[in-house]
């Protein structure tokens, strides 16, 4: 079946690239035989393809590679020393140092309030025993705190009422 000009135009690239099935190719050839405008357009398109395919590839200037490499940020592999140095730099930052010191003092103060002794010698000798002792002390302190006792007795009272 013969196609019209619009259908012919739509398939021109496929026609030139031999990408059309035989019936469609035949219908385009049938149309081209009777349409001078489409034949001229196809010839022009064929010339365009020839021109663009023979388009010269330009050689880039020799200095361009050097300039690109010179302007690329230096690639430096990070080693464990760099990582350690990074942590060290972070630790000696005034804000970090102040924060760490405050945390240590707060933990010590809360520990002393809870009655946990800071016997450094025994901690070093037996860290596991020191940990369990501190844990027991903390639990005991919690359950004996007046506020906790009051809340617990209130909960018991409400449970009895209900």
């Amino acid at each position, binding site marked *: 079946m013969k196609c019209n000009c619009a259908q012919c135009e739509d398939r021109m690239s496929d026609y030139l690239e031999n990408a059309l099935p035989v019936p469609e190719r035949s219908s385009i050839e049938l149309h081209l035989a009777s349409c001078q405008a489409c034949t001229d357009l196809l010839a022009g398109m064929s010339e365009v393809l020839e021109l663009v395919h023979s388009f010269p590839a330009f050689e880039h200037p020799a200095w361009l590679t050097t300039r690109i490499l010179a302007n690329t940020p230096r690639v430096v592999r*990070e080693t464990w020393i760099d990582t350690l140095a990074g942590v060290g730099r972070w630790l000696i930052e005034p804000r970090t140092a102040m924060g760490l010191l405050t945390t240590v003092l707060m933990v010590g103060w809360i520990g002393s309030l809870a009655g946990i002794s800071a016997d450094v010698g025994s901690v070093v000798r037996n860290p596991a025993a020191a940990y369990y002792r501190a844990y027991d002390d903390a639990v005991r302190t919690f359950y004996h705190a007046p506020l906790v006792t009051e809340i617990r007795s209130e909960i018991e009272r409400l449970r009895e009422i209900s």
Partner: protein
Amino acid sequence: MTSDSELVKGCLAGNSTAWESIVRQYNSRIYNLAYRFTGKFDEAEDLTQEIFLKVYRTLNTYRPESGALVTWMVRVGRNHIIDHYRKFKTERSQTDALEVEYEKVEENPSRFTSPAEALEKRELSERVHRTLLRLSEELREAVILRDLEEFSYEEIADMLKVPVGTVKSRINRGRIELARLLRVFKDQL
């Protein structure tokens, strides 16, 4: 020869020789891509450098399983050129720029091997570029990627993030436009 993925791995691991290999291997390709889009040597040189720096910064996003390194680099390059083109679109007249540029080519025959070759290439470039740069952005990039860079329809569809059918249609329309513009150009001679 080192494969693309090995080069990328080496580069990401901090091997500057791997990066140098990538630059040397694809410099010409990117330079020509930039020149074909802009039609100006100076601009192509600057764009090539900018594209390589962009590639360097985003190299960790390249996935070898999604395609060849050159396809990925052309995609990065194309996006950069389009951004650049949009930014400076209003500041220039394409025809004037081209005329100046072709004069520069004539004045600088060192880019070619002989004067006769220079003249032949100049005429060819001029004719193709004059018409190519008159196409709309979407038709031009489709024609450049297919007919000058010789990528497959599937690769172009992947680069432009449009269906293959749209790519085919843009290329066909671009070629038709080029054929018509070339005829007008010939009639004016």
